[in-house]
């Protein structure tokens, strides 16, 4: 009651100003991608910078014309897909074993794997490159692009962090579900594959989403591995187009928008899916 109208208005204005600080660069990127190059430059001294007028799609056409956009996009999509699917196939069983199965050395092995979480790729990028380089001979048989896609994905399928996250989730599942399956004569595989895995959907969704974001955005490892324009990932393609004369701000921004859209879509779709599966487990429980 004590709060008058003016302070509320003031608060809203301050909040709007801060919000604008955070989204202005993103709006500028979006607006600039739809404007003729000359207009992007001419508008920098006015608020017209944030308005896509005069409107054109020419920047997108130019970005596609001057780069191997389709190939680059396909490479990146394949890499993130392989990491996500391959990751699920190796990490989920391992996480389940650490949560439910008994075997000698379980605690020690788990500790060893979890301790690798603190080793960032930036630290081991060169020795990892040396390891992966030993398979270069395969590139001459299968071709440069398939080799590159494998080199970008296979080393990142198994992730200690994902195993850790999935194990924590498996531990929270009630044992009674699997025990019922065992009574019905199911083996360990069936109990894992048909009971535990479907029930861990929210955790699996989180892990997949993390993998998609990390590897769609990855820059350092593709920079080390990719050779040749058609083998590049989207971030590398953008970095390269960025320095390729003639420099056109409009089409650079268009490329940047294109490099963002699939990730933004995955984010939106994935988030909804995770919320849904969370709600689903809530109803079951």
């Amino acid at each position, binding site marked *: 009651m004590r709060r008058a109208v003016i302070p509320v208005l003031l608060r809203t204005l301050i909040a709007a100003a801060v919000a604008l600080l955070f989204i202005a*660069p993103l709006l500028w990127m979006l607006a600039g991608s739809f404007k003729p190059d000359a207009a992007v430059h001419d508008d*920098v001294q006015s608020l017209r910078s944030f308005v896509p007028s005069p409107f054109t799609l020419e920047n997108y056409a130019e970005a596609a014309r001057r780069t191997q956009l389709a190939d680059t996009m396909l490479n990146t999509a394949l890499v993130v897909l392989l990491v996500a699917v391959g990751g699920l196939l190796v990490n989920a*069983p391992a996480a389940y074993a650490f949560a439910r199965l*008994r075997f000698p050395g379980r605690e020690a092995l788990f500790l060893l794997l979890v301790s690798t979480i*603190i080793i*960032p790729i*930036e630290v081991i990028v060169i020795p990892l490159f040396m*390891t992966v380089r030993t398979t270069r001979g395969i590139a001459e048989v299968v071709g440069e692009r398939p080799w590159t896609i494998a080199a970008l994905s296979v080393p990142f399928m*198994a992730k200690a962090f994902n195993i850790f996250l999935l194990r924590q989730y498996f531990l929270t599942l009630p044992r009674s579900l699997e025990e019922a399956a065992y009574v019905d004569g199911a083996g360990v595989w069936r109990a894992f594959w048909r009971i535990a895995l479907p029930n861990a959907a929210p955790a699996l969704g989180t892990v997949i989403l993390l993998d998609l974001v990390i590897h769609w955005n990855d*820059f350092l490892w593709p920079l080390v591995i990719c050779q040749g324009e058609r083998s590049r990932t989207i971030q590398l393609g953008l970095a390269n187009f960025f320095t390729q004369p003639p420099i056109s701000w409009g089409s650079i921004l268009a490329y940047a928008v294109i490099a963002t859209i699939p990730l933004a879509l995955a984010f939106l779709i994935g988030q909804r899916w995770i919320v849904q599966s969370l709600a689903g487990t809530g109803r079951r429980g």
Partner: protein
Amino acid sequence: MRGRDRIIAFTFIAPATALIALFVLWPVVSCFITAAHDAPLTQAELGDYTGLRNVNALIDGVSFRRSVRNTIYFTVLVVPMQTILALLLALWTYGTSRRKRALRLCVFLPTAFSLTVLSVVWKLMYEPATATGAGLFNGLLLAIGLEAQPFLTSTAQAMPAIVIMSVWQGVGLQMMILLAGLQTVPSRLYEAATIDGAGRLGRFVHVTLPGLAPTLAFVVMITTIFALKFFVQPFIMTRGGPQGATLSIVQYVYEAAFRQRDLGLACAAGVVFFIIVSGITGLLHGLVRRAEALS
């Protein structure tokens, strides 16, 4: 029966363990081995054993020391700025009103973009004013009658410019983690403090801060690790320049391997970097533990 169970457990863990051993553990070991050898990029096998020669070359070289200095400079600027800003934003946007939710979304939005994309966009925004045009920031400065700034093209301004962009990009994630932490502070403590006559500041100092301490320590830890690994922003925006003013350790490692074509030197730098990162991680992990004991 028990034997069979062990075989099943083995098939569950073997693929992931083998991959992590090959692609994480072995590279760590191989990094140390390579650092002590002569290892030109063009050669598939390691050359002569050289002991500490690569490490000495590293420490004697101007650019590695500069890259360490730059990385520390960046970290020392980014971590406090980002943590304090994230804390302020979290406290401000804690709640469910529409205004708060909208603000939260806006602050979080840059985290959904790749660092490469944002570095490219910010590089264009930071462009100096020339006869042919200017970047967005200089455009705004000129429009309100101020002097244009060199930003990324000046040795003094390049790093602060990259710091501002990095804080802008990363603060949303930290804010979200802190918001989750705020939810764990029991509301009855606030009620008790209010009954005891604590004001807003008193409640913040005696309830919020101790309750949030573990989350805050965790945020400081991951922000520090992220900062130490910074690479994409300067690599895209300045290539480490001008005159090495924004050369990061990671870029030094990359260039030692692929420009100087010396894998031994690159791995020596990797070893030093590994020691720095794990040392600081260990220290900060201790901080997190103590913060957890506190609350």
